[in-house]
């Protein structure tokens, strides 16, 4: 790579990584992907979580959920499938036990919410209106691992619009992010529906529905039979979907995208930025090494410095395409 205009390291530090997600100022674009980072400080021993731009929690539902039977994950080349089943402590325990720790982290928090009925989503969203540290809710209408829930809302554009509008009514202080499923024939249709329903931001992608078979027993490996594929294997799909949603929906509507799916290195993160993502969420990579947060941030800075850019905003959606 040509680096004739290489800046000094002091300059690198001064590069502005801040982004704005629907009115919430983030120090940098990096966030956690729901379900891969626990509720709060689980990674605190391994990385300084203050390096993040925002923290996104595990999906929270009204009642606690114990989740699917074991085995819940299986590895594949360059990725993994999971069928956790939205196991979580439930709204009350989240507020009483997990929130105080989140508060201490001093980061903008987006709470991912999941439900079986529309009323479930509304109840969680309403309860989170009173909490200062929470700046937004992310609607998980796209979890492929729950029989009675999630996915139905996520695949049908009219259902997406309806649930988005219903939750929008109860979110006053909090921003509303809708997390899109890649398991649809046209993701721009569900993205547009979310925007029509009043979404302040879109996040994509959730996991791709997948299956692994044990050839000895001739049965599915996961107890849930299917799981959601994540990790480097899905990155090209995710980059393409971010590109499509950005050009056809988000850019015209003027709303930001939080991009995710297999981000592992700085170069991956930069692909998402170029495709049009404003925020970047890290999932599976955190399992391998939580310090990838710092590494990716540094890499983005260096990329910008090498190209004489002073702000990350200069490359968002900068993909050259004829």
């Amino acid at each position, binding site marked *: *790579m040509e680096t004739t205009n290489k800046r000094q*390291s002091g300059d*690198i530090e001064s590069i502005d990584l801040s982004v704005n997600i629907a009115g919430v100022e983030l120090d940098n674009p990096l966030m956690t992907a729901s*379900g*891969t*980072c*626990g509720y709060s400080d*689980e*990674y605190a*021993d*391994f990385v*300084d979580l203050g390096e993040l731009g925002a923290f996104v929690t595990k999906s929270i539902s009204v009642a606690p959920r*114990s*989740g699917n039977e*074991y*085995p*819940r*994950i*299986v*590895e594949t*080349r*360059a*990725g*993994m499938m*999971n069928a*956790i089943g939205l*196991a979580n402590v439930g709204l009350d325990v989240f507020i009483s036990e997990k929130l105080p720790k989140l508060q201490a982290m001093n980061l903008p928090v987006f709470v991912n919410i999941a439900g079986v009925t529309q009323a479930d989503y509304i109840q969680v969203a309403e309860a989170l209106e009173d909490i200062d540290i929470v700046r937004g809710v992310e609607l998980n209408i796209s979890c492929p691992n729950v029989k009675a829930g999630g996915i139905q809302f996520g695949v049908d554009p009219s259902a997406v619009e309806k649930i988005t509008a219903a939750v929008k009514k109860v979110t006053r202080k909090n921003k509303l992010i809708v997390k899109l499923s890649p398991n649809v024939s046209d993701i721009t249709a569900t993205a547009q529906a979310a925007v029509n329903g009043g979404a302040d931001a879109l996040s994509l992608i959730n996991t791709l529905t997948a299956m692994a078979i044990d050839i000895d027993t001739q049965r599915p490996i996961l107890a849930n039979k299917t799981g959601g594929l994540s*990790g*480097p294997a899905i990155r090209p799909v995710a980059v393409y979907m971010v590109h499509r949603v950005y050009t056809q929906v988000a850019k015209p509507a003027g709303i930001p995208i939080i991009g995710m799916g297999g981000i592992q*290195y*700085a*170069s*991956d993160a*930069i692909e998402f930025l170029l495709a049009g993502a404003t925020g970047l969420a890290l999932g*599976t990579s*955190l*399992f*391998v*090494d*939580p*310090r990838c947060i*710092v*590494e*990716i941030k*540094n*890499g*983005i*800075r*260096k*990329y910008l410095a*090498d190209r004489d850019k002073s702000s990350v905003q200069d490359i968002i959606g900068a993909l050259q395409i004829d």
Partner: protein
Amino acid sequence: MCDHGQSKRGVFSAAVAVNEQICEDHFLLRLHICDPVRKFPPSSAGQFVQLRCKSADSREAGHLVEATATTPPQFSLDELTNHQPLLRRPLSLGGRREIDPGTTELEIIYRVVGTGTRWLAGLKSGAELSVLGPLGNAFAIRTDKPKAALIGGGVGIPPMLYAAETLSENNIEPIAFCGAQTSQLLPLTVDGAPDTGGAPSLCTREFTERGAKTVITTDDGSLGFRGFVTQAFQQWCDDSGVAAGQLVVYSCGPEVMMRIVGDICIDRGIECYLSLERHMGCGMGTCQSCVVKIRDNSEQGWSYKLCCSDGPAFPAELIVWE
């Protein structure tokens, strides 16, 4: 950042000091961690580490993260042709010592069963490896019980070595019961002839060094007592006349074996801890993949606990077997 005093868990870069085959399919791995900034934190018997079974490039080896390349990593032919897993692999600590100021040696014994462990087996001394840990909880050491039985099957033996050392230091007499299918698969150095009747003797170098007599069992009778390790343990309970209240049992190995160990101990009123294995996504308590059903007072009579962060050892009477 530099940690003073107690060092936190983290990702460390280790150098392979020894990686030698000790019997069919089994390898002894000694890793040296010498980090100028952070010491490997205190660890205990029962804990494990997550190893990255992948060539260390400077970004992932566990160096403190510095400014980063933004070009995609260049993989060598070896990396492309020999599949290296994405996720880390959990391996128990078999022992740990400070070898000179600032260098910690970790001892691991592993069996080659798949991609990750096969990759480990190819490591030469001097190679660099990324270690995440220490993870999980220590075995509960009961200083009020004068004797402890350590029941290990196959690769469940290494944590029993670490336990023997700790028990001896606490003036508790450990007696090891080690089982393998056949003598070729026993990852221990046998001195003299183990008793075929199942009487404990100083017959293995590793346990003798840690103050423990050993009973060896093989399914085919090729070494020591012919039969299962559980049969030898049961017979010893009858013959030795040790009162149940004077004994505590720790066990690690195949689940069928631990289940029987648990049943024997519950029947006889012996306190017993079983160290379970689960497929792990993270090892840090975030992914919820490593669930174990543990009895409680809830309506369904159990709830899921995490093998990685609540375990890996659990009291036998609390485990709900599948």
